[in-house]
């Protein structure tokens, strides 16, 4: 169970102060699949980063409380939160020269994985194993490949909360359809695992148990796909697109 209370995040900018997150209050029950969506710059990524502890202290001021399974996260670093079972899929995962896919997956798993364990993880994200085991995580990997390996690092860990920041960004359409399939399977197989995905994509939004709409740093709507999606689609027509566009078509 994730409980966020009165979460505010303020940064200093040239005009003085800017409120990135405004009084966010949010409970997400264990095992839920939640999609956070909203226009660019609305604070979605900041909210996700605040949960993982990825906002550097010097960047601004964060107030409020985030509890995970009853434990207060404020004051805990990234490592501490990770060890509580929280994981984070980066929008733009970093590359590691010299490090092989198997090395990264073993780090994620916290033990040296056997070949068949690597294979199981990579096949879950639709990568043909033999081609990837010894590949280095460098510029030779495409954006889509890197993104799928990023998801595999989350699957390799025994976690109870998975946060994905725009998993569709930077990947091609073909990889994207595989990706939605992957999320569907994770949700089906890991029933206790909470999944939070930040996304603009209708196909990912449609997978959710609940949609949270964020706008100008605040939660403006929560509800089921049936309740919220029509609202988004209406806005999309009247106020230009904020759905779509993230996938390189």
């Amino acid at each position, binding site marked *: 169970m994730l409980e966020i209370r009165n979460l505010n995040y303020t940064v200093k900018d040239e005009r003085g102060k800017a409120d990135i997150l405004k009084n966010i209050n949010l409970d997400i029950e264990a095992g839920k699949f939640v999609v956070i969506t909203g226009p660019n710059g609305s604070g979605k990524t900041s909210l996700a980063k605040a949960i993982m502890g990825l906002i550097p202290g010097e960047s601004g001021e964060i107030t409020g409380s985030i509890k995970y399974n009853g434990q207060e996260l404020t004051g805990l*670093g990234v490592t501490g939160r990770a060890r509580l079972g929280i994981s984070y899929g980066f929008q733009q*995962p970093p590359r590691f020269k*010299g490090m*092989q896919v198997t090395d990264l997956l073993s780090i994620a798993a916290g033990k040296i994985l056997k070949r068949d364990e690597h294979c199981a993880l990579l096949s879950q994200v639709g990568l043909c194993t033999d081609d990837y085991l010894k590949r280095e995580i460098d510029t030779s990997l495409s954006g889509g490949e890197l993104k799928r390996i990023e998801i595999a690092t989350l699957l390799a860990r025994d976690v109870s909360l998975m946060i994905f920041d725009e998993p569709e960004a930077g990947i091609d359409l073909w990889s994207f359809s595989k990706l939605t399939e992957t999320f569907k399977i994770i949700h089906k197989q890991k029933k206790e695992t909470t999944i939070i995905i930040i996304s603009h994509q209708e196909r990912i939004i449609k997978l959710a148990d609940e949609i949270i709409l964020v706008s100008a740093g605040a939660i403006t709507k929560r509800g089921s796909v049936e309740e919220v999606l029509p609202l988004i689609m209406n806005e999309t027509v009247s106020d230009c697109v904020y759905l779509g566009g993230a996938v390189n078509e």
Partner: protein
Amino acid sequence: MNDIEKNLLLQVADLHDVPMGAYNIREDGALHSRQSTESIEIITKKDKPGIDIRIKPGTKNESVHIPVLITRTGYSEMVYNDFFIGEDSDVLIVAGCGIHNGGCETSQHDGIHTFYLGKNARIKYVEKHYGEGSGTGERIMNPQTVVYMEEGSYIEMETVQIKGVDSTKRHTKIEAAAGCEILITEKLMTHDKQTAVSEMDVLLEGEGSRARVISRSVAQDESEQTFYPRVKGMSDCFGHVQCDSIIMHNAKVRSIPEISANHVNAQLIHEAAIGKIAGDQLLKLMTLGLSEEEAEERILSGFLK
């Protein structure tokens, strides 16, 4: 062998005891032990310190280990080892030097390894340098490697210096005839006030010769590194030089790859990059449950793998 010697041997040759096949273990300037085989003969030089290693043509799947151990503080040496690799052979050669300096005087190993590769001969040459010991005396190693390659021969050269060498000046020179292939991987880590200079001259003389040089280094603390890999294309050839360095703390790194073409069909590329560990790399590994220190260590060990 005592524990110090055994550890040096493990560090520079991955050996727990005397190796299989041909070997020559040199310790503080004297022969510790040696074994020749039917195909690989090791002979002491008569005119200067060092050995000749003669590998018969057609020798395949054999190895030669020639580690050098220095455990005496203040000991300095200059060694000349010549390798004559017969035609069509395919062998592994593991050299390397480990210095344990527990005293206050400088211990130094300088060596010139000269290889003569016969036609279509293939070798993998591994050279590891390692220093340890709590003494204040410096540990210095200055290796020179000279390789003359006949047609169609191949060398894969892997040099590794990860720890404990205060000062090193390395020079590698390779002359490649037609159809030769060269793969050099250099891995270097310096720390404290260490200095390292690595110069390389690869001459692609023959048609169809190819060279790849991959240099990866990590400079920590106050250490300084300089790289001068130079590849010269004298014919229809291919050369690629790639230098990557991670810089940390107050270290200094200079990287000056040079490619020069003396032939219209010479295709030469160089890349060089120096940078610190990226913040998002650390954060990614921390989201996997590693501490910042553990993350840094994993990034460096992956980079120098």
